[in-house]
């Protein structure tokens, strides 16, 4: 049995232009691979990708809609990136997003006599807390009891989605339409629009603040240093006197809270009432976005914009060219794998040969 062997030689830190170029090359390669799946349906990939990009950013209206889509993706991307920085494998952003949306619905349905500024601020706080609480459970289990984080965060997603389903089919069911969706939350909790006559809302600003905050926390604070040290080498971090248990728990709180904000933003900024499909997998896309962005806040922001283009563009491809919209999931999976392989080039030079 002769396998192709790929020899790797350690290299010194790659130049900056190389680091910036890598995600761009990853995108090009992954679109090239994705083109195969368009070709097997007999579609011209160039036409398809033209529709994808033009449909997402070709007009002012499309561009603003793309930013609406990018808002939850930036937030889940940041949530995952912070967690992965500490090598805390939070795959639960999806459930944490739903927790945030659930709490924001609960609070919004109370119709409290509050001014919009206060109501919205409290909505953001409540949603952050809900996501954080849902996330700190697996975080605590990981940090204190060494329970595998990947599995618990994933399973928590299913539990949360069933909780939402139970509420929407039970106490929160719309009494007029009898659809499994809540009635609208208080008007004073609606996020104001950023651009009139569009759907772009202040959730986008919240997302940008999250990007800046992550940059500040991870790069400029002691906590950030501890998070990075925990991720890079937990044993060495312990040796330096860093409490890695505490770091993991704090990271799980911040990460879950930010994912919860994605839920608040979708609820108060786009839907105004809770529906079962409030997230079509934004939490999982967050993983792809965090990796393509190389866990760097600015990188995460840019890659969230890219995937917002892919997702909105896929819908345009769907109704214009009859290409199944799931092409966006195919592109996401391929991009994640290609980007991961590209990261190898940061550490090694690659030589291809044959093994024995």
């Amino acid at each position: 049995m002769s396998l192709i062997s790929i020899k790797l030689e350690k290299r010194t830190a790659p130049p900056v232009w190389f680091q910036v170029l890598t995600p761009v090359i990853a995108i090009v390669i992954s679109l090239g691979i994705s083109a195969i799946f368009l070709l097997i349906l007999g579609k011209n990939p160039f036409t398809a990708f033209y529709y994808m990009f033009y449909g997402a950013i070709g007009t002012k209206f499309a561009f603003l809609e793309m930013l609406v889509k990018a808002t939850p993706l930036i937030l889940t991307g940041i949530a995952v990136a912070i967690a992965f920085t500490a090598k805390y494998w939070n795959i639960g952003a999806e459930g944490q997003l739903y927790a945030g949306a659930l709490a924001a619905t609960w609070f919004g349905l109370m119709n409290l006599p509050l001014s919009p500024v206060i109501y919205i601020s409290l909505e953001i706080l409540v949603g952050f807390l809900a996501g954080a609480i849902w996330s700190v459970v697996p975080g605590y289990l990981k940090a204190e009891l060494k329970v595998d984080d990947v599995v618990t965060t994933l399973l928590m997603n299913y539990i949360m989605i069933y909780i939402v389903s139970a509420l929407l089919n039970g106490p929160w069911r719309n009494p007029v339409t009898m659809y499994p969706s809540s009635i609208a939350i208080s008007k004073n909790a609606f996020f104001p629009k950023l651009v009139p006559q569009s759907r772009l809302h202040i959730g986008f600003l919240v997302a940008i603040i999250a990007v800046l905050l992550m940059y500040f926390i991870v790069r400029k604070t002691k906590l950030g240093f501890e998070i990075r040290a925990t991720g890079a080498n937990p044993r060495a971090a312990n040796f330096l006197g860093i409490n890695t248990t505490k770091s993991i728990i704090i990271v799980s709180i911040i990460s879950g809270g930010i994912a919860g904000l994605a839920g608040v933003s979708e609820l108060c900024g786009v839907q105004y009432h809770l529906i079962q499909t409030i997230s079509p997998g934004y939490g999982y896309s967050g993983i792809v976005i965090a990796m393509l962005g190389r866990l760097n806040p600015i990188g995460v922001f840019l890659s969230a914009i890219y995937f917002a283009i892919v997702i909105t563009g896929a819908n345009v491809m769907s109704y214009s060219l009859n290409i199944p919209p799931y092409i966006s999931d195919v592109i996401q999976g391929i991009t994640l794998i290609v980007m991961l392989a590209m990261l190898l080039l940061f550490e090694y030079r690659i030589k291809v040969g044959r093994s024995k």
Partner: protein
Amino acid sequence: MKNSFLTLSFWVGFFAATIRVATPLILATLGETFSERSGILNLGIEGTMLFGAFAGFITVYLTKSLWLGVLFATLSGLMFGLLMAFLVVTLGLNQHVSGLGITIFASGLAYYLYRAIIGAPTVPPTIKSFSNIAIPLLSKIPVLGPVLFNQTIITYIALIAVPIAGYLIFKTNFGLSLRSVGENPEAADAVGVNVYKIRYLSMIIAGSLMGLSGAFFTLAEFNMFLYDIVGGRGWVSIALVIFANWVPARVLWGALLFGGIDAIGLRMQGTPINVPFQVYLMLPYILTIIVLVIGARNASYPSALLKPYRRE
């Protein structure tokens, strides 16, 4: 209705359902056991199962042959196993992210191809799925007969696969190599074991079992392909491997425990107890987390799990 708990037929139905629900878990968990025994955490499991469910369904839909469906589901799993092996064995990439990438890619591809071939009809098309096979004589044993010996062929395959997997892992040269590669690849290499080859083989076995597991959903449990038809069973399998301490015989008990909780939920939905049915649906996931918490202390992970091996 209230007395239904006390009747024998309730319990026969309950245990038969337990084994049915446990079937895909047994197959997938055995697959993941092979994978992790060689040192690879395969998070591609959920997507590999979903693609297996799709591949099995679409093959039967197009060819009307159930066995071709089983074959192509298994082969599709094998292909994703190979892809995973290429990423984490040959390239030595991060196992967590590679596996998640495969799950996102495989699920997306399954839905993409389904939509392309079937379209989006209001009623999903169905196939004629596997029917139960009553094994002569054995199925006539009271209670045990209808529970164990009146199942679909895939359940029988799963039950037989347990001792075979145990034999392969603990009684053969391959099993010895497999375990040594997962515990200490450098030492295994030193005594002449081809680490890459063993890991590739284990990923092929693992992927095939996961693909076959997926086929159970569309060819035996249901007779159609539905969105998220696997519903996190792959993730449950990852937990069951830990619960089973990487031992096939214990995989069986873990899968039956989970299957039992699932079956209780299915049965309780019809009772007058006033609890939303979603509570029963989330029970297995809550139980899995509890089991993980209890098991975490004693779990003896293969030492080389998550560590890529690079020959100097």
